């Protein structure tokens, strides 16, 4: 508690409000997408980040454009927190030409290298390895940049976790591994597929620091990520951060929500909603008043609505472009 207090007083009002705004933006964009899905505007699958906003927000607040983020199937929040424009994100999820990748891939294939976002992914695991490579590249060049991997508790049982983190640790690569432990992989509870006491505790066996933190507390995330990123930039190597968090909606949009978890569990977590609890804290601290909050909320809603609107109005991709960029160089096509 004291440590958290310490951390929040070191942040400026602007920083605090930025954290809140980012979370609000993510929440609102996700809600637009949920509505679009219900309306039939989303041609494929989509995994919502609602409930987990503090993680992407707290981590990405520290990142420069050149720092490279590699994300998961549940990556809208990471994309937005790293700076992807909401309309480019939503248009992509709708499969539209003005999406960040021209509608080619949708939700699980969002890329925006211009802001250092190297992709959501339909395959669980590789984000860990590719981020390790970004760290290798930084070290090879002697730059100060870091690679960041987001991944779920489910990915922590994948060989990519072991192989990637071991190499980063061995060679002190500037990488931050952010595990979003939301207790389930699809509908499989973590405790049924591992006896691991925690994801963070696996770090010691690989010789790097591992911390488990409250992923619903954006300041706790911000602090832990800040330390890890600073450590990485100093050349001292990688850190594994396990963020305890929770998704509110079904594993994928449109999936039934029964059986594997209780309504009480969901309610319990919703009481600790990362946005609400941060808002309450800021109100209590007198950082802003409720009116200012309403304005922020309105602004996020408006941005998200405009983005969804933009996306809906975007043209479809031209079928003739289907075979573009199979190779990056036209002469090989």
């Amino acid at each position, binding site marked *: 508690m004291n440590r958290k207090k310490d951390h929040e007083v070191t942040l400026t009002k602007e920083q605090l409000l930025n954290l809140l705004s980012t979370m609000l933006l993510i929440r609102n964009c996700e809600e637009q997408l949920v509505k679009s899905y219900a309306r039939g505007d989303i041609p494929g699958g989509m995994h919502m980040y609602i409930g987990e906003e503090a993680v992407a927000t707290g981590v990405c607040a520290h990142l420069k454009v050149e720092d490279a983020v590699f994300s998961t199937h549940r990556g809208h929040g990471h994309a937005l927190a790293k700076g992807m424009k909401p309309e480019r994100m939503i248009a992509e999820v709708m*499969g539209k030409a003005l999406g960040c990748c021209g509608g080619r891939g949708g939700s699980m294939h969002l890329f925006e290298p211009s802001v250092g976002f190297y992709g959501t992914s*339909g395959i669980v695991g590789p984000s860990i390895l590719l981020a390790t490579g970004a760290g290798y590249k930084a070290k090879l060049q002697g730059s100060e940049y870091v690679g960041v991997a987001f991944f779920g508790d489910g990915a922590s*049982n994948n060989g990519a976790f072991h192989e990637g983190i071991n190499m980063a640790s061995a060679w002190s690569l500037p990488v931050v591994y952010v595990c979003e432990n939301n207790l389930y992989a699809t509908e*499989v509870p973590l405790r049924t597929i591992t006896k691991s006491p925690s994801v963070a505790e696996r770090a010691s066996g690989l010789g790097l620091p591992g911390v488990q933190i409250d992923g619903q507390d954006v300041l706790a995330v911000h602090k832990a990520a800040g330390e890890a990123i600073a450590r990485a930039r100093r050349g001292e190597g990688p850190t594994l951060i396990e963020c305890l968090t929770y998704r509110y909606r079904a594993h994928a949009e449109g999936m039934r929500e029964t059986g594997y978890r209780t309504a009480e569990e969901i309610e319990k977590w919703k009481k600790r909603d990362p946005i609400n609890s941060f808002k309450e804290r800021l109100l209590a601290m007198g950082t802003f008043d409720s009116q200012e909050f309403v304005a922020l909320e309105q602004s996020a809603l408006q941005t998200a609505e405009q983005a969804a609107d933009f996306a809906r109005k975007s043209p479809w*991709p031209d079928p003739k472009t289907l075979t573009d960029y199979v190779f990056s160089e036209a002469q090989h096509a």
Partner: protein
Amino acid sequence: MREMTFTDAAREGLTEEMERDPLIFVVGEGIGARGGNFNTTVGLYERFGEWRLRDTPISERGFTGLCIGAAVLGARPVVDFMFLDFELDALGDIINQASRLSWMSNGQVKVPLVLRGGVGIAATGPHHSSSLYSFFMHLPGLHVVAPVFPADAKGLLKTALRCNDPVIFLEHKKVMKIKGNVPEGELSIPFGKANVVRPGKDLTIVGISYMVVEALNAAEALEKQGISVEVIDPRTLAPLDLETILESLSKTHRLLIVDEDFSPCGAGAEIAARVMEQGFYELDAPVRRLNGPFAPAPYSPPLEAVAVPNAQAIVRAAQMLLAE
């Protein structure tokens, strides 16, 4: 005979075999209480319990290797990968261990193992749409099964579950809800027997997996133009029933192979090469292939529309081939 879907028929086959053989078990992510992403195991967890319906971590390579080991020791594991794309992380051990252990051990070890996964494009984008039939056809030691109709799904899965060698069982997402008559109880369909699903005399079309359905639609349309098309569903790609294809060719003298998967070194390349080798003098025109374009699977509907051969495209290809 009852009407049922492909997936229900396959599940009936699995259930019957699991009743019969206590050493059959299924592993995968969400194949326990959830019943499988594609409903492949609905109801089985309640019936057979966790040791026979094992929800796994996201360790595709790991649980595939686990199943290879269990198979070597005499169990009959089924790996339910959901999407074939996830199976690719396990290819090393599928190739180096599963497909070769019988041979390497000089016949002392058997690997009765079924690897099943969904293939094909269905609004699924570049990471959930791979087919890669030919990867498995290329390798000695594997059976490759790609049924289209419910009765075949049941019969071939039952055969797979009695086979003493690894079987790659590929289920196109677009056939999973196809309905058809399925005989009750015992139904065993041998590997290596193609089905002439529509007889004809002007042109032979071999469809790979779901493409059989599009080929049938095309045949219907061509019939109206007075063109009689024979459509063949190979059902198993390894072993491949070339005889049935050659027999058809000796009637039609023209062959079109339709495959949604990539063309180079694909199933169609093999069928074309073998037909040339064994039926060259029957051919009135070159064997033609119709494949998806050489690009990853797109997500956006207008892109998908051109990424997958459909009845229209098949009609066009057939007309061109007949004009040669």
